[in-house]
């Protein structure tokens, strides 16, 4: 690949991140500050913010106005829906999913977290780690976001007190460890989004803090590569057939590598048929590749003519998933209509959508106490529960904890087509994993306040 960048800069990579926080933690201001200080805000946008700030009687620009997009949000001074923001430095391009904290927080956090490689959680330094903070962290852990940053905001309002910061950072680190985050995957940073301390520029007010600023960390944190031990998974999206002078009787299987790596010559199996063959070419319009890693959209040409169609999965012959028509899963319920055991739904997994029944609802995750409650009658909007899913056709699923792509599925309402839930194959959080042995009091997964 040739370099396409402006002379003097190298090719940036991409980091997808999500933000989450409670009401009034100043998240919109923090995101506005990141955009403002990385010069991602252009003059006319800034002029509009300055005018609106003056209209509101403010003396300094309200940076949260940069990100509150819908009129009802600006009128109410709140953020309703997940918004996507873009900023870039010479080192990295960033796609930021800005998830609101209070209205339907699970729905929004799950949406933002599903694609995030890192999440920034905000707390108010005056309030410390709240229930809401622990719930957000639990949802981020459930969705498998590999890295967390705790931005301890409004540090100026506690007089830049190191002791306050350390106490919050220590408490949060213990909570993250309980949720399964290894040491080194969580970082706390003292910031003031309003003033700008340690967001982009290092603050002189926190001489006791020796770690990176938020942006420095975002620029340098390793983008979690798909671990090489994760087996190759390739949902077939589309069969490409053509017959031209250059491409005689061409038949290729188009898709995006969901996990692992595929190489020319690999022995693979097509599921659900179970037929084995070999990868003879990995095609792209720019020329064939010797191998393709997770995230790449390619077209596989196979050695044998076998019957493969959209929705099938190509996997290594020696490490293929078992196709199951009944599996345990965790659902984050995103609909106003509650889930009741026995509900008939559609499940979209990879490129396949099949009828299914949520046959059993065995536990609900109590986000207030961070425990699991057995045998709930229903699962309501924004609740997380442990279920058994029966599908009309077997699906080649992986455990979500092993693979975020091939372990994820949508639950869809067959009547109106709406998305009802985010589905994760397997048990998810420790509290849900241990549900069989849980007492009515449940298993505590958090040290708690």
């Amino acid at each position, binding site marked *: 690949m040739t370099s396409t960048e402006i002379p003097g800069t190298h090719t940036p990579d*991409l980091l997808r991140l999500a933000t989450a926080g409670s009401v009034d933690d100043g998240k919109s201001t923090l995101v506005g500050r990141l955009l403002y200080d990385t010069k991602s805000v*252009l*003059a006319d946008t800034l002029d509009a913010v300055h005018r609106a700030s003056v209209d509101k009687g403010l003396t300094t620009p309200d940076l949260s106005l940069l990100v509150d997009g819908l009129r009802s949000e600006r009128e109410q001074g709140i953020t309703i829906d997940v918004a996507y923001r873009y900023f870039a430095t010479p080192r990295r391009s960033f796609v930021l999913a800005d998830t609101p904290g209070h209205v339907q927080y699970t729905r929004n956090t799950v949406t933002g977290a599903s694609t995030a490689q890192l999440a920034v959680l905000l707390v108010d330094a005056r309030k410390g780690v709240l229930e809401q903070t622990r719930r957000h962290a639990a949802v981020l852990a459930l969705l498998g976001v590999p890295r967390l940053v705790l931005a301890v905001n409004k540090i100026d309002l506690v007089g830049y007190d190191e002791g306050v910061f350390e106490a919050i950072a220590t408490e949060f680190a213990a909570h993250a460890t309980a949720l399964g985050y290894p040491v080194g995957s969580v970082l706390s940073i003292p910031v003031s989004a309003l003033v700008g301390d340690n967001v982009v520029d290092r603050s002189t007010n926190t001489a006791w803090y020796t770690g990176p600023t938020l942006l420095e960390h975002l620029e340098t944190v390793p983008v979690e590569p798909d671990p090489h031990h994760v087996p190759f998974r390739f949902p077939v*999206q589309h069969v490409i057939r053509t017959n031209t002078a250059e491409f005689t009787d061409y038949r290729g299987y188009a898709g*995006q590598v969901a996990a692992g790596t595929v190489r020319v010559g690999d022995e693979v199996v097509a599921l659900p048929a179970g037929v084995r063959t070999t990868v003879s070419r990995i095609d792209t*319009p720019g020329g064939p590749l010797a191998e393709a890693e997770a995230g790449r959209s390619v077209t596989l040409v196979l050695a044998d003519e076998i019957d493969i169609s959209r929705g099938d999965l190509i996997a290594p012959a020696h490490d293929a998933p078992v196709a199951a028509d009944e599996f345990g899963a965790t659902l984050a319920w*995103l609909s106003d209509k509650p889930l009741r055991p026995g509900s008939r739904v559609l499940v979209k997994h990879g490129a396949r959508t099949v009828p299914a029944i949520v046959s059993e609802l065995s536990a609900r995750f109590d986000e207030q106490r961070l425990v699991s409650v057995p045998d709930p009658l229903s699962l309501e909007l924004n609740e997380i529960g442990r279920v058994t899913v029966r599908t009309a056709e077997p699906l080649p699923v992986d455990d979500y904890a092993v693979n975020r792509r091939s372990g994820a599925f949508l639950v869809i309402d067959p009547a109106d087509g709406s998305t009802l839930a985010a589905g994760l194959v397997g048990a998810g959080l420790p509290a849900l994993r241990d549900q069989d042995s849980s007492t009515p009091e449940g298993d505590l997964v958090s040290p708690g306040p």
Partner: protein
Amino acid sequence: MTSTEATTEPATTGLTTTEPAAPTAMDALDRLESEAVHIFREVAGEFDRPVILFSGGKDSTVLLHLAVKAFWPAPVPFPLLHVDTGHNLDEVIEFRDRTVERHGLRLVVASVQDYIDDGRLQERPDGTRNPLQTTPLLDGITDNKFDAVFGGGRRDEERARAKERIFSLRNSFGQWDPRRQRPELWNLYNGRHRPGEHVRVFPLSNWTELDVWRYIKREAIELPSIYYAHRREVFQRDGMWLTSGPWFGPRDDEQVRELTVRYRTVGDGSCTGAVLSEASDIDSVIAEVSASRLTERGATRADDRLSEAAMEDRKREGYF
């Protein structure tokens, strides 16, 4: 509504098959391209009658380039739809027709002029036709039973677009209800819709203007010549440089000058302005965009300046 069928020839990118390339790490543009290709293929699998909105502008040209890559070496399995305001620059229409022919695609044109001629729409006093596009667009979608409509919209263009989904469900009036949007999880897109509804699909959602320009350079994508600096007769209105033309100006009090300009977007010539620029090739355009202190919409689109919520209102009405 007219339809032109171009000669069919296989879509190719002009690149030939060589020995398998050694692996290189994906950069930001590779990831954006792969995401867009994935979206095109999902739509091909889940919808019966998709269509690509194609104006000949840079975003829709990049969109078409990505579609070609998604289905290569087979041709793009969708037709194109252009909502023609009748206020286009000749260079853009020429480019549009040439591009359609080169890829062997079918172009459906929904003409605002036709609607004005037969009385279904009335010319506005200010002569601006962007707000008139919604009706021909929705009729074009309904008449052709299109169920997925690809657009080149990007979330970085405007604040209301920042909350747009990649798959955006529209009711049978083409309306966007921000509160009825589906959560969009992982890369699992839900394209289910009821009869009469359709889904707008935005494969460039996560691209910025600079990404688009860098990609145009990397892929050597041809654009209409108006995107690069050229001499043009222009006049100033509302702080924008509009081009001279028989249908919208200049008025008697507006003085025409010949200046070196380029366009950052294509659109209705009565409200899409040129910017003063010496950027005559792709590298100087990228340098200019990198340094620019105005968003492309703020710089050049009068209709987005009308109110704080202008775009949000137009999206609710069924605009792109």
